[in-house]
């Protein structure tokens, strides 16, 4: 399948410090990729480069065959590259229904409409209720976000991202800060993501990585040191050295 998302020789330095060094990767629709790496490996910089919040020193980003290196962050979202945030960034005074409704309207280019109410727009509401239902948030549809639990807020982040109908979804630690009891719900949501969507997940929790990803990329000191099957990642000597040392020695790795 032709790649929906490509990064070619991406490089970024701050002064003399090279934070992202010659990173290349390519993803096809339906890919489930986890990006891992120790703290300071350059994961955040990589996300910012890819989403257009930081210009690269050199290299290219391509979305669905189109080079978007010069396209700003908003333009990349409109072309189908959507991200979720590590710390949920939701509108505290708005309801889940409003969040998803706004995302649907925005995707259809109708978020600037000066009249009408999305609650009365049947086709928008059909999508809103389908998504909220899918993520188990239907009962909270009209609560304010500040009143709902953090795990549910994380699910709402995913709902908002899906409402934008992305081609490529960047999940930044989707389970961070969620109590153990709620992670099952989030894993279920991740398993239920649309099959043709390319997903790149940045995650620290290795259990989640091994359950979710069909492919693992390890970033260390700004370069990709491993790109392959999850089963092989713990066997890789460089990865062990750079990052997984402790974990690979732990007993419960399958």
């Amino acid at each position, binding site marked *: 399948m032709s790649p929906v998302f490509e990064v070619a020789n991406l490089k970024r330095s701050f002064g003399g410090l090279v934070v992202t060094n010659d990173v290349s990767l390519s993803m096809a629709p339906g890919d489930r990729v986890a990006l891992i790496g120790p703290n300071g490996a350059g994961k955040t910089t990589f996300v910012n480069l890819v989403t257009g919040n930081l210009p690269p020193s050199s290299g290219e980003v391509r979305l669905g065959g189109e080079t978007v290196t010069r396209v700003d962050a908003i333009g990349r*979202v409109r072309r189908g590259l959507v991200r979720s945030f590590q710390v949920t960034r939701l*509108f505290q005074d708005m309801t889940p229904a409003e969040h998803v409704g706004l995302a649907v*309207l925005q995707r259809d280019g109708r978020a*600037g409409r000066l*009249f*009408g109410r999305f609650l*009365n727009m049947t086709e928008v509401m059909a999508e809103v*209720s389908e998504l909220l239902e899918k993520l188990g948030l239907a009962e909270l549809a009209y609560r304010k976000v500040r009143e709902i639990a953090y795990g549910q807020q994380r699910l709402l982040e995913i709902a908002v991202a899906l409402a934008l109908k992305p081609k490529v979804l960047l999940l930044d630690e989707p389970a961070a800060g969620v109590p153990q009891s709620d992670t099952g719900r989030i894993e279920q949501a991740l398993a239920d993501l649309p099959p043709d969507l390319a997903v790149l997940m940045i995650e620290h929790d290795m259990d989640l990585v091994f359950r979710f990803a069909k492919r693992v990329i390890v970033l260390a000191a700004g370069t990709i040191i491993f790109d392959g099957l999850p089963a092989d990642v713990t066997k890789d000597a460089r990865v062990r050295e750079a990052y997984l040392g402790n974990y690979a020695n732990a007993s419960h790795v399958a």
Partner: protein
Amino acid sequence: MTLAVNNQSIPSRPRGGSFRRDLIGVAVIAVFAAAGYILFPDNLALLTRILAVALLVLALDLVTGYCGVATLGHAALFGSGAYAAGILSAHYGINDPLLMTLGGIVAGAVAGLLCAVVMLRAHGLPQLVLSIALIYLFHELANKASSWTGGSDGLSGIMPDPVFGVYEFDLFGHTAYFFGVALLLIAFVLLRLVVRSPFGMLCRGIKEDPLRIRAMGASPNAALAKMYVISGAVAGTGGALSAISTQVVALDALSFTQSAEALVMLVLGGTGSLFGALAGTLIFMLFEDYVSAANPFHWLTMVGVLLIAVVLFAPKGIYGTAAAYFTRRGEANR
């Protein structure tokens, strides 16, 4: 993925609520307007002035209350509307009050766009400083262009024709008052539609987290500029009403003081609510008028004390706090 789509899966909200509140809002404005007319028949000039300033405060609420842009220069939009309406009449002989109002709306919208282009380049405190710089520039421009604006003497020679060719602007201000009430009602209804439209929802999102809105693929600055234009049209309507009703335009219309007072009224009533903006204007201006007559030496002190009391004890503003109180009580009684 396999879940069946079920439109009834999320409980539907009561739909008629907002429409009923619109009607209540219109009725409340109409009752207040009628009460003012009956109770203060000799003071219609003040009441008309309140209507004009209420349009300015509503306009300010759109950018400050709904979008989170703090500005101390919003009278630039109001004053532009006032001068446009005045200049149309005084220099071009266009005396139809509806055309003058239209001129005020267009000028206010243009001024709004201009202010947005400058102000939206900054955030927070620098943005506030830009707004102050803008109002001084507008003020100075009006002052210097005295052949057009009359400079510090004010613009006179405004002679509006009768409304619809029938209702003349009389010495007692009856026509001006009803004209103002009509403008306010129209603006109120239109703004109610705007604030709960998808665009209004987008603006609430921008107020809370512009970065999140960008991650949804929308441009916060484009939306804010649009809101500024709408706000300019509303403030310009107020300016035009002021020019038409008083038949002069003074430099005050375009002053920092007027801008700051509008912000005070908005905070007093409660930001982020059209009723709050209206309540704040009414309370502030009646209080100002009453207290300044009763005690001309200390009225500003009393306004200051009132404001401190509201900010400390009712930070949501007078209307906002009252509304929150009744909502809580309503929920407790259910």
